[in-house]
C-alpha cells in the first residue's frame, strides 16, 4: 500500500543522501521525495511517498528513526491528512486544441500560466491521483512535457509534526 511519510531532520549537509541511501541500500520503494527548509532554519522537512507491506513500512519508519540526523518521523497514513502536489504540463495548443486544452484545464481547476503560439503550460495542484487523472484524460500525443514536484503532506486538524 502507498504511504506518505513526513519527517523533520537536522538541516545538515548530507542529510538527504542518508535518507536516499537508506532507501536504496535496503531496497525500499521510493515514489517521490521532496525536501525543503522549514520556518525553523535548522530543520528540513521531507515528504517521502513509498509503498510496501505493513511490515516493510514499519521497518522503514524504524530505520528512518535510527538515522542520527532524523528528529521526528510521522506516517501520515496513520491518521487523516492532506496531500498536495504541483504539476506543470506543457501541451500542444494549435487549432481546435487551443479551446479543448483550455476546457480540460478548467475541468481540473488548473491554470494556464504560459501561452505560446503552439503550446500552453498548465499548472495543476492536487493529490497525486488527481494529477494522474488529468494526464490520463489528455490524448498522449498532446503532452509535450510534464514536471511534478512530488507530494507534500500535512496532517488534518490538530495533527502537527513539530519539534
Amino acid at each position, binding site marked *: 500500500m502507498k504511504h506518505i511519510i513526513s519527517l523533520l531532520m537536522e538541516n545538515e549537509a548530507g542529510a538527504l543522501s542518508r535518507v536516499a541511501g537508506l532507501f536504496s541500500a535496503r531496497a525500499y520503494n521510493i515514489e517521490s521525495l521532496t525536501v525543503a527548509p522549514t520556518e525553523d532554519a535548522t530543520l528540513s522537512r521531507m515528504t517521502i511517498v513509498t509503498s510496501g507491506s505493513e511490515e516493510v513500512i514499519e521497518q522503514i519508519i*524504524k530505520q528512518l528513526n535510527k538515522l542520527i540526523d532524523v528528529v521526528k518521523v510521522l506516517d501520515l497514513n496513520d491518521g487523516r491528512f492532506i496531500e498536495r502536489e504541483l504539476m506543470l504540463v506543457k501541451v500542444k495548443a494549435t487549432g481546435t486544441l487551443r479551446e479543448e486544452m483550455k476546457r480540460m484545464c478548467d475541468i481540473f481547476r488548473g491554470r494556464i500560466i504560459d501561452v505560446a503560439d503552439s503550446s500552453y503550460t498548465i499548472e495543476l495542484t492536487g493529490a497525486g491521483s488527481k494529477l494522474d487523472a488529468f494526464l490520463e484524460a489528455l490524448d498522449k500525443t498532446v503532452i509535450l512535457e510534464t514536471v511534478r514536484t512530488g507530494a507534500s503532506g500535512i496532517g488534518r486538524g490538530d495533527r502537527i509534526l513539530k519539534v
Partner: protein
Amino acid sequence: MEDRTTQITGAEILIRCLQEENVKFVFGYPGGAVLNIYDAIFSQTHFKHVLVRHEQAAVHAADAYSRATGEVGVALVTSGPGATNAVTGIATAYMDSIPLVVISGQVPTPAIGMDAFQEVDMVGVTRPCVKHNFLIKDINDVAMTIKKAFYIASTGRPGPVVVDIPKDITAQFAKFSYPKTVEMRSYNPILKGHTGQIKKAVNLILNAKRPMLYTGGGVVLGDAADQLVKLTRKLGYPITNTLMGLGGYPGTDPQHLGMLGMHGTYEANMAMQDCDVLIAIGARFDDRVIGNTEHFFRKDRTIIHVDVDPSSISKRVKVDIPIVGHVQSVLAEMNELLEADTKKPDTAALTAWWKQIEAWREKKCLTYDLSTDIIKPQFVVEKLWEVTGGDAFVTSDVGQHQMWAAQYYKFDKPRRWINSGGLGTMGVGLPYAMGVQLAHPEAQVACITGEASIQMCIQELSTCKQFHLPVKVITLNNRYMGMVRQWQEFFYGNRYSESYMDALPDFVKLAEAYGHVGMRIEKPSDVEPALKEAFSPKLKERLVFMDFLTDQKENVFPMVPNGKGLSEMILSEEL
C-alpha cells in the same frame, strides 16, 4: 592577528579531546593529510599510538580492543587510500555493533571536490557502514564533533562513527574547551524497557511449558551477562548463545545447550524450533541463526524479544512481546519481578522438557573421529581449551576453524571470544589478537586461524614484534579454504574451484623472519606438548606461530544447509 597565546591548533584540540575521552590506545598509520595530527601526537604522552602495517588492521585492532574492554576503540588514518583501507574494518565493526571512533584525514577544505591528490569522499564511502559520520568544516566544531562521536558510538546500539578532518582545520588555531555533556534532539537512545511489557513477558515466561532462552551479542556488549546468569539459573531453563553471544552464559554450565544456528548443536537448534516460549535477548534472528524463516515459523510459539534497537525487532521474525531497552536494565527488572513473584516455573512441564532435551543431547552431535596419525582440527581446539584452563581470550578468522573454535572452546566469561560474526571478515584474527593483548597484557591470547585467513593480515606480525605482543597463533592448516571447500563438496559436486591453498609459505620460517617463534605440528601426539610449550613461562613474552597440519577433508558438523530449516541439520554420521 588574534591572540594565539590561549589558542592551540586543530590537531592539538583533537589530541586533547582524545585525552578527555580517556583514550589509552590509538591504532593508526600516518600520511599527508594527518601530518599535523601526527605532529601533535609526537609531543603527547597520554595515549599510546600503535603503528600497524595496514590501515585495515588498525581498525580491526581498535575494534578488538573495544570488544575486550567495552571501551570505545579509536583508529586514525590518512585520507584517500588510508581511508579506503579502513573501510573493511569499519564495516566489520558496524555489522557487530562495536563502538569505534575512526578519524580520517581529508584534503584541505578548499581542495575538497577538486579531485585533489589522495582525495576520497570518506563520508560518502562509509555512509552505509557507519552508525554516523561527520566531516568537520570549522575548527570551532572539532571538540563538539568528537564529543558527539564518542557519545553516538557508545550509546544505544553501539557502532562505528567516522570523523573526517580536512588538513587545513588541523593547522588552524582556536581555543579549546571540551563540552561536558552532549544533547542531541535527534538522538535519544531508549534505555529502560516498558514496564508493562516486561511484566507481561515475565508472566509468559513463568507459564511456559517448553521455554528457551536465546541470547546474542547484545548481552555481551550490554554487559548483561551477570543478570542473564541470574535469570537463567533462577528459572532453570535451557539457554543457547549465538556466535556473537558466546560467553554471555557459561559454556560449561549444564543449562547451556551450546551455540545454535547453521553450525549450532543439535539440541540447541531442536529446542529453538520446538519451544513454546522463546525469550530472545540481544539477538537479531539472523539468517545464519534461524535458517529459513518460513520453516522457523510456528503458530504455537510465543516470542519475547528484548533489544536496544527497535529496528531489530520484527525485522525477520514477527515477535509477540517486543521490549525495547538496554538488555542489562531489562534483565535486572525481570530479575526483580521474578524475585517478588510467588508463581514458580511449572516443574512437571520443565522436567519433561529437559528429558526431551537430554534425548537430543544424546546424539552427541559434536563427536568427531579421533585419529592417531592425522591431526583433527577439533582436537587442537579442545586441547587449547585444556591447556589454557578455558580462560584465554580467543580471536578467530573466518572459516571452518572459526566454527570449530566456537564449538569446542567453551567460553565461560563474556568478552573472551572475539570474532567477526556479521561481516565474516577473513583477516581479522591477528589484528584482533593485537587489540586484545594490548588491552590485557597479562592474559593468554590465542588467535585460531586458517592458512588462508592468516595471510590476509599477516603483515601485522611486524606490529606484534614492535609492541611485544606475545600472541599465540594457532593455524589449523588444511591446505584449503576449508569452508569454501566444504560447500563445494556438499553443494557443487566436489568441484573444488580455486579453493586450494597452493604455494603456501613456510610459516615457521616466516614467523622467524619476523622475529617470532615458529612451530610446525604434524602428529596428533605432538599437539598437547606443543601447546603446553607455547603457553609455558619460557615463551610467555614471545609470539608463537603454530602451524598445525590438520585433516584436509574434515567438515564442520552439524550443518543447516543454506535456506533450510533449523531442524533440518546434516549430522556427520548421516553422510
